[in-house]
């Protein structure tokens, strides 16, 4: 912050200049005693007349060597070059201790600029850190050490730098190809021979402002460093992803070394193919558990601001729902959240407006989505919440952003006065929108007694089951036997009476004869009638209760008896009944007796 304020102040002071001049001193903070080391003054403008500060306790071995360089940044195919002028001094300290070195001054366009000061600790030779022996640059290092007297030893190489080597799926990382060089001027990128295809990644060229060349200490040496290519990568699958090596062509000038009598005075052009090593990224998949169903694929950190144009409109008036998704992450891959407009709304494809930048930490900015829908039917509707689920790389968990649910009141469309047409009415079948299970029931089971389930069922093969078949069967069998016996018995009785009918009738007639002789008229007729009736009853198997002249005639007719005999039977019965109460002579009685006897004889002959 302080720096920034200082910078602003500096800007104000140098209002006359079109841009600020950067002049700074770079040097090691710790050097071993009796070992040469370099201090560089870097200027980003063309300038001269450098005045190094007084350096008591240091011996100037060489310098100032002036070198200029251009660095390049490729951004969206646009090449930007920056200029840099470096003044290099080589010193040697003999006494250990801490030294403060003042500012150097330089003149740029007639104006003097001061650099920053430096603090250098000189340590004893033995305590100096052993020179690192790192893999690929060992040779160069050794060579440079063996020829320490030649500080401008040319060294130029590429490094592949990953911002992170262990990331989550969809979590951005930056890959940069950095050009390290020392002892070379006018370094220029001549071409790209080979570029990795970045399989397994989604690639976003970085929108960053062109990076300037700067000084970096690498393996104990100070290099000019320029980032020649930078890209934002979003891993698309989990696992180990290898980025294949890249190849660049560079041309540069090796400055002339005035001290070497056989060397060239003005330097010479060099051309070199540089290879950036392959790199490996470990990608961890997003956790499966708790993954929301409507996971949008977004990874990063986002906020969502919803706004709706209106919640109360007339039918056929559009409603716009706008979602502003702001944040940092893989914005490009963020799925557009789905809005489930209620039935009766015509929804249109959402309009997406992206305004974001690709920075080192990922894509940052805002994605604005506008959903347009036109309600067709008046009524009250609920617009369900629109949700956006993403993986929050800050908290390492899934998060779901949600809009509120909106209550939409759609008024009946205003009909214009002169619109006399009757609008079309159309009937629609019930439309199936989705299928789901039917909802749970709320009828609670009645509290049941213990063992209620067992008692309510007659199980096949159980005792009760057998009983329900066998008891009725036995009952029926018994009933059949009893009924048969009863019928047989009944049948026997009538048989007996049938067989004895004639005999009984004769006996009654004999008794009637006795009564006739003793002159008991009433009893005589009674006996005559009974004889006839009992005979008919037994022979025709008519119960006494049903014994009437009509039934008798009917039964006789049914058995094919001649009509004269039926009439005769009827007449005898009527006369016997009638004569009981009327006075009659001896001859009448005799005649009645004979008539009855004849009738029975005739009926007997009929074999009823």
């Amino acid at each position, binding site marked *: 912050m302080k720096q920034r304020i200082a910078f602003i102040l500096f800007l104000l002071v140098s209002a006359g200049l079109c841009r600020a001049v950067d002049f700074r001193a770079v040097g090691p903070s710790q050097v071993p005693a009796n070992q040469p080391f370099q201090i560089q003054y870097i200027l980003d403008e063309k300038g001269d007349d450098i005045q190094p500060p007084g350096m008591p306790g240091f011996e100037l071995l060489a310098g100032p060597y002036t070198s200029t360089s251009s660095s390049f940044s490729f951004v969206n195919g646009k090449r930007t070059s920056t200029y840099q002028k470096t003044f290099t001094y080589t010193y040697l300290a003999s006494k250990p201790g801490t030294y403060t070195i003042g500012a150097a001054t330089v003149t740029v366009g007639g104006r003097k600029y001061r650099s920053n000061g430096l603090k250098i600790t000189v340590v004893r030779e033995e305590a100096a850190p052993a020179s690192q022996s790192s893999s690929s640059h060992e040779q160069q290092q050794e060579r440079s050490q063996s020829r320490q007297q030649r500080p401008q030893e040319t060294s130029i190489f590429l490094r592949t730098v990953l911002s992170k080597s262990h990331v989550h799926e969809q979590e951005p990382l930056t890959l940069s190809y950095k050009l390290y060089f020392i002892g070379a001027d006018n370094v220029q990128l001549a071409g790209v021979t080979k570029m990795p295809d970045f399989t397994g990644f989604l690639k976003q060229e970085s929108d960053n402002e062109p990076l300037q060349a700067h000084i970096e200490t690498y393996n104990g040496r100070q290099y000019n460093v320029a980032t020649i290519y930078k890209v934002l990568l979003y891993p698309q699958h989990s696992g180990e992803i290898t980025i294949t090596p890249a190849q660049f062509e560079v041309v540069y000038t090796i400055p002339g070394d005035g001290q070497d009598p056989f060397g060239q005075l003005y330097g010479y052009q060099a051309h070199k193919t540089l290879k950036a090593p392959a790199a490996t990224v470990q990608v961890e998949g997003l956790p499966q558990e708790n993954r929301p169903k409507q996971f949008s694929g977004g990874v990063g950190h986002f906020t969502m601001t919803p706004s709706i144009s209106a919640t109360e409109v007339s039918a056929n008036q559009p409603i716009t729902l706008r979602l502003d998704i702001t944040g940092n992450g893989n914005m490009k891959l963020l799925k557009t959240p789905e809005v489930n407009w209620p039935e009766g709304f015509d929804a249109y494809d959402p309009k997406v407006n992206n305004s974001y930048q690709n920075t080192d930490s990922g894509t940052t900015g805002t994605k604005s989505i506008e959903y347009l829908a036109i309600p067709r039917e008046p009524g009250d509707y609920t617009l369900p919440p629109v949700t956006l689920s993403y993986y929050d790389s800050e908290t390492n968990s899934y998060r779901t952003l949600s809009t509120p649910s909106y209550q939409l009141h759609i008024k009946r469309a205003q009909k214009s006065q002169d619109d006399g047409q009757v609008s079309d009415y159309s009937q629609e079948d019930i439309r199936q929108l989705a299928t789901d299970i039917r909802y*749970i029931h709320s*009828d609670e*089971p009645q509290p049941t007694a*213990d063992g209620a389930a067992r008692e309510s069922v007659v*199980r096949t093969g159980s005792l009760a089951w057998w009983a329900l078949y066998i008891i009725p069967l036995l009952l*029926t069998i018994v009933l*059949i036997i009893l009924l048969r016996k009863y019928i047989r018995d009944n049948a026997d009785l009538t048989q007996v009476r049938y067989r004895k009918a004639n005999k009984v009738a004769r006996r009654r007639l004999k008794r009637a004869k006795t009564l006739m002789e003793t002159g008991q008229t009433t009893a005589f007729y009674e006996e005559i009638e009974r004889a006839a009736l009992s005979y008919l009853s037994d022979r025709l198997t008519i119960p006494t209760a049903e014994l009437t002249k009509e039934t008798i005639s009917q039964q006789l007719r049914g058995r094919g008896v001649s009509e004269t005999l039926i009439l005769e039977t009827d007449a005898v019965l009527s006369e016997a009944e009638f004569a009981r109460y009327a006075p009659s002579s001896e001859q009448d009685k005799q005649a009645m007796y004979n008539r009855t006897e004849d009738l029975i004889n005739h009926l007997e002959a009929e074999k009823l």
Partner: protein
Amino acid sequence: MKRVYTVIAVLIAALLPLQAQSPFEQANTAYSQSNYAEAISGYEQILQDAQARDALTDDYAEVYYNLGNAYYKQGELGHAILSYERALRLKPRMRDAKQNLEFVEQRITDRIDDTRSFFLQDWLITLRNNFRESTWTWLSIVLFWLVLAGLLLFLFGREAALRKAAFHVAWISLLLTVYTGINAGTLHSRDAAQQEAIIMQGVVNAKSSPDQSGTDLFQLHEGTKVRITDTLGDWSEVRVAEWQGWIETRMLERI
């Protein structure tokens, strides 16, 4: 006085919602709040209690039905199907349970097409499965009584027309008695012997013999209904349509 009653009535009405909810209502509330895991444990507890008291009457079909819904919402299709099947054992004509069972069965992996069955057989099986065992048992018993009554009327009826009718009633009833009796017996062997089971494991390989070294014959997935034809140790021989093989019993749950 009237006012006092009104006040009391209002008070009671106000207090009613504060009454402790029954376990069933609690589980329903959990379900309506999408808290399915809690709903499942609630329903299971109710059913366990009823089973322990031997009081699992038809009414509990509703509990099984709700349990099936909760399992479905949790994505446990095997358990959901099992619960619906159990609900239908108690109330074979419960429409919602049938509907949901059909719905969930469309979401399982295995589709069973028994090519051997023909429409009349299907119709008879559907008819049989539409009623409980006890219904068929009682029908069979009552029809048998009708046979006996018809026999008596035929033997001792006075009028010829009556005797003729009784004779027809008797022989038709006798046929129906046998049919309903067979249905009752089939359902009895299915329910009491628990011959039908649902696959609970995601994927199961049916083997040719009841041990791990057996040849894999075919593959079944969660939710498929199988018929257990034999058991040996920890293994069950199952039949699905024309397929038959051995599966570890722990992969199954009997209905």
